[in-house]
């Protein structure tokens, strides 16, 4: 067990996790998930927001079992390896706001950092601009970190039960999803909302999605896999540890796509993508800055939530609410291009993040 544990802290450990995510994401796509979206934390949280009826964009509503699996898998991993540690209280509402703007940025590009890599691995050239934006946003974030940026210390909670609420909500979502399967079979109305067409209607069989999510959650918690951290640590410390994982994800998804005939290079007519490059860049720059100020990419925040980190759970909740705001107020992009009010939201997002960056200091 000890050897298993230390393996994940090594270079080959993080590479193993990256390969696993890349291969499984491409396979999920083959099994029914939307194109170049085998796994996308932002898109999947957006679908969850739709499924809960927080927004009414009928094309993107589904209770994604992968997200549920990430949190519960990380929770089990944290329990087994004695890393479950209920904590929180480090500027929670600031983290919520960062989560909202992270999602507004991600939905301008149409993807989280994971999907940025998966889009590239599927041949979508527009993702190059998203990736450049992501790195730029992370770079801006590191300037604040160098100036002493901090959201302050979190506190350890005295009650062991304080960290189980986010995983429990995910478990509740899973139960609702299962109940709906029975209701569907007997032709009764469902509790949650489900897309009948569009990306929300495309999904792998529930059990596959759930098991893959659980497995990734389990190993990613232990390996600290983080796409934002990968670029941040290179910029700040020239430390490539996390980057090896991200690079492995890209390469393994690329190879799997070639094998499964899912590689279609080009800029035009790419699935669930647009080619307004300036907004692809700016959207991911805003997302990258928000992730850096909050200390983790959307996936990492879910794994931390599973460890009992209430601050990460609040960031993830901010992302789900951010998706609802994006779709309710015309901020989210679609394959046709950005929404009618995307520019205002992106400018506001940068203003808010810069203010947070300049004023947050730990004495």
């Amino acid at each position, binding site marked *: 067990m000890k050897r298993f544990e230390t393996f994940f*802290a090594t270079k080959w450990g993080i590479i193993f996790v990256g390969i696993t995510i890349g291969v499984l994401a491409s396979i999920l796509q083959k099994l029914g998930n939307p194109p170049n979206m085998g796994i996308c934390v932002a898109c999947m949280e957006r679908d969850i927001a739709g499924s809960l009826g927080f927004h009414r964009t009928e094309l993107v509503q589904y209770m994604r079992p992968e997200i549920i699996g990430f949190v519960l898998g990380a929770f089990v991993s944290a329990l087994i*390896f004695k*890393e479950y*540690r209920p*904590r929180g209280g*480090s500027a929670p509402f600031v983290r919520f706001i960062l989560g909202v703007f992270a999602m507004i940025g991600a939905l301008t590009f149409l993807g989280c950092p994971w999907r940025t890599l998966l889009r590239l691995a599927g041949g979508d050239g527009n993702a190059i601009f998203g990736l450049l934006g992501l790195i730029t946003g992370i770079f801006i974030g590191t300037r604040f*970190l*160098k100036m002493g940026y*901090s*959201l302050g*210390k*979190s*506190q*350890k909670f005295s009650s062991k039960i304080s960290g189980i609420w986010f995983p429990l909500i995910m478990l509740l979502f899973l139960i609702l999803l299962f109940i709906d399967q029975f209701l569907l079979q007997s032709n009764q109305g469902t509790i949650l909302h489900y897309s009948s067409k569009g990306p929300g209607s495309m999904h792998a069989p529930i059990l596959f999605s759930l098991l893959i999510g659980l497995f990734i959650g389990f190993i990613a918690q232990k390996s*600290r896999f*983080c796409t934002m*951290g990968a670029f*941040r*640590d290179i910029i*700040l*410390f020239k*430390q490539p*540890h996390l980057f090896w994982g991200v690079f492995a994800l890209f390469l393994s998804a690329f190879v799997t796509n070639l094998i499964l005939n899912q590689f279609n290079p080009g800029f035009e007519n790419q699935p669930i993508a647009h080619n307004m490059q300036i907004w692809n860049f700016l959207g991911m720059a805003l997302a990258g800055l928000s992730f850096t100020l*909050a*200390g*983790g990419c959307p996936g990492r925040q879910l794994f931390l939530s599973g460890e009992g980190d209430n*601050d990460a759970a609040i960031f993830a909740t901010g992302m789900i609410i951010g998706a609802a705001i994006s779709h309710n107020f015309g901020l989210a992009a679609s394959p046709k291009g950005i929404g009618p009010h995307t520019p205002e939201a992106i400018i506001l997002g940068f203003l808010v993040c810069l203010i947070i960056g300049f004023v947050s200091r*730990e004495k």
Partner: protein
Amino acid sequence: MIEIIDVRGLSCPEPVLRTLEAIKKTDKETLQILIDTETSKENIIRAVNSVKWKILEVKKELDSYRIIITKHQ
């Protein structure tokens, strides 16, 4: 006087940033770092090794770890 850097409760990458800052500024031969997560432990060990300092000891305490590092190889 022992120099102690308490980075418990801080988000990534602040524990590593503060440790490296302390290494740069200190005139002491050894430093103690207080951390509270396995993640910080792994990250700090990696960072300390990369600047050619040495880990002397990692002590498990009640709710935290105390990492003692030294300049001498």
